[in-house]
């Protein structure tokens, strides 16, 4: 990769070989430290349950096993259902977030928009003062009657003041007024200017927002905790939180609960390896989605359209 040309003159941008090697090592080491825990979880998910109990966590387990995965897929129509919910919520939620955030942020970025100050404050205010848990619950569950619907997972997260401000700043700094002005001279309406001129060169900014909201929707479990009672609509992460919380709860309260009962409950929970397998299954897709967005991040740092 780095030297197709041994005989040629040394590139002045190149580091001395020793430095290059050292920096690669440091970067590689750091990457390894970041990736290792996840790799470890993957290994654990393929470990045989009993050897895990006897030996504890090991990088090279005594015995490998696919049991955890077969366990999940055997009892797992809930897992598949949750997968479906999460995918749906993530796609629809991201689309809605991008649409609404772009429209809002673009309006705020236009200097001739009369209520610009008001709407900027309107969004910004929610960053400073939140209503709190119970009031927002009352709004979503009782006023809008979204409880136990898929919209309870989507709507509360569509508009985030942070996203709006990020995108507004992006529009303000990256989109020169000259572009819009030139469009207007050619007779474009505001919408036309947004669609044909601004959006094509704003892809990096929008992709960033899309990535933020994809991650947020994919990882969200709290809205499900609040608003979802029925099994049909529990997203993946909420399912895991349920398992985790329930386990914590039973362990902590095992003496208070009727002892025979709590034992039975602990027994009915998935075993250690199965939990690891769930983590792998839940993180997998987003790990693979990330590189596709990541391209835009890099672009976002380098893009420019007009020289002034």
């Amino acid at each position, binding site marked *: 990769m780095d030297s197709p040309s041994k005989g040629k003159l040394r590139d002045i941008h190149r580091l001395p070989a020793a430095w290059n090697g050292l920096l690669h090592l440091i970067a590689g080491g750091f990457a390894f430290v970041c990736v290792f825990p996840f790799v470890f979880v993957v290994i654990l998910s393929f470990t045989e349950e009993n050897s895990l109990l006897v030996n504890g966590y090991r990088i090279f387990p005594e015995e490998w096993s696919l049991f955890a995965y077969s366990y999940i897929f055997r009892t797992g*129509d809930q897992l598949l259902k949750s997968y479906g919910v999460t995918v749906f919520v993530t796609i629809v939620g991201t689309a809605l977030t991008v649409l609404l955030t772009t429209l809002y942020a673009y309006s705020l970025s236009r200097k001739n928009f009369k209520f610009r100050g008001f709407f900027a404050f309107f969004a910004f205010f929610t960053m400073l003062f939140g209503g709190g848990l119970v009031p927002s*619950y009352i709004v979503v569950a009782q006023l809008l009657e979204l409880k136990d619907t898929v919209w309870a997972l989507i709507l509360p997260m569509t508009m985030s003041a942070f996203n709006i401000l990020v995108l507004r700043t992006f529009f303000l700094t990256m989109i020169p007024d000259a572009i819009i002005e030139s469009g207007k001279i050619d007779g474009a309406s505001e919408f036309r200017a947004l669609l044909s001129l601004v959006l094509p060169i704003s892809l990096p900014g929008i992709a960033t927002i899309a990535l933020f909201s994809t991650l947020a929707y994919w990882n969200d479990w709290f809205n499900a905790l609040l608003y979802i009672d029925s099994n049909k609509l529990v997203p993946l992460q909420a399912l895991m939180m*349920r398992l985790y*919380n329930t386990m914590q709860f039973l362990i902590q309260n095992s003496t208070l*609960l009727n002892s025979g009962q709590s034992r039975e409950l602990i027994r009915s929970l998935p075993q250690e390896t199965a939990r690891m397998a769930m983590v792998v299954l839940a993180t997998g897709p987003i790990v693979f989605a990330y590189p596709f967005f990541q391209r835009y991040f890099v672009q976002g740092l380098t893009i420019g359209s007009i020289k002034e």
Partner: protein
Amino acid sequence: MFNKNKKWVGLIAFVLVVSVVMAGCSGGNKENKSSNGGASQTPADSIESKQPESEGKKEEPVKLIWYTIGTPPTDLAKVNDEINKHILPKINATVEMKLLDWGEYDQKMKIIIGSGEAYDIAFTSSWANDYFGNSKKGAFYELDSLIEQYGQGVKSALNPAFLEGTKVNGHNYGLPTNKELPQQRVFRFNMEMVDKHGLDIANVKTIDDLEPLLKAFKEKEPGIAAIPGTPMEFLPFDYPITDLPFIGVAMDTQDYKLINTWDTPETMKYLKTMHKYYEAGYLPMDVATLKDAGDYFKTGKWLTDTADTQPYADNLWSGDAGYKVVSMPMHDPIAFNWSVAGALQAINAKSKHPEKAMEFLNLLYTDAELINLVDFGIENVHYKKTGDNTKDAIPDSGYGFPAFSVGNLMLTYLNTADPADKWDQFKKFNDSSKNSPLLGFQVDTTNITTELANLKNTKEATYKSLFSGTLDPETNIPKITQKLKDNGLDKVMAELQKQIDEWRAKQ
């Protein structure tokens, strides 16, 4: 062009306003409908107008919303339908069961109660959805007259100590499940290890009796910690606040004088023994920070631990472990506030149909068919009957419900493997229980909240290392006592003493 802009702004604003208004209206309409559909406008009205109506027998069936604890099973809707078919002709009401998972229940119910969401019945207890706190706050319906009127079945099913012990300021706000009433702590033994090394457990009653066994075990199985986690102590005290196990009265108290129980000879003796055991290596080195997930139970690498028992618990434990587990009791059964309030069902203070809710709850104590349906699901789908009163669960059938959380456990089918006299033994166990000195006393924490929080922090910081034997009690108890005093121990004790004296004067 500017005009065009303005038009757009106007249009969007208009659409927004219209949609907000419409949302508001539709929400309002639905609310009106639901409140008109069931009963009249205010709860007070409904109580008065209800009785004459029910004689006419032509009222619309009421739908009760019932939040209860447990992992929501796949077939919940199916079983819920069966339940409704069963109860509709009896009480002209249906229920909508909403099971909330164990770890979520407490948090969700806090929000549901806090936001004033409509529900009728909810699970409550001393360990989730705080029964005593909610009752004092007025979140639950006061049941005294309802029990008299609609709850005779409940009354006759329950040991009187249940309703007595769950009174808050002299009133009942919840109906306890009819299950084991007292607490009895036991030492459990892994019989495989006991038999293998020829140990004698017959005389074990206190922690000191364990010593010869532990010593012999250590010699023969040096690689295994005989006591795999911090054992739960049993010291002869009763605590007004379970979270603070150092403010208490002696179990045989006459004058109900509060003492710092960590500063007593009994505790010191116990802690010294634990410290000796820890030093001798009978417990794991890291026992104070260990979280017991029950793994040792599966692997069988242990000799003894502690648990709270119920009749035939040894069978349950053995079945679960896959080897024989035998227990030896530390004391006679005692009914504590928290053991009595282990599982209750309460009615929402704002419920529109408290009488219907009570009638439904009453059925759960008297109607064997109903309680078995709720606990085990549908016959031949979720379980198979193997005798008049016995059943076997069908594995992976899609229904599971924590039977101990509701109704009358004594009416439920036994497992085929259970001894036939299981419920008789439960009754005997309940009848044999003695009341703890503070049974029925509830603390009012309003004046001492900061001190309680500080004391709780001190407890969290010291309890585990002290009671696992990690710390030497002789040097540490004085230090900890001083720390407790610095954090307001005396003030809390004075306040609690005042409340206890007042409570006793009223009795």
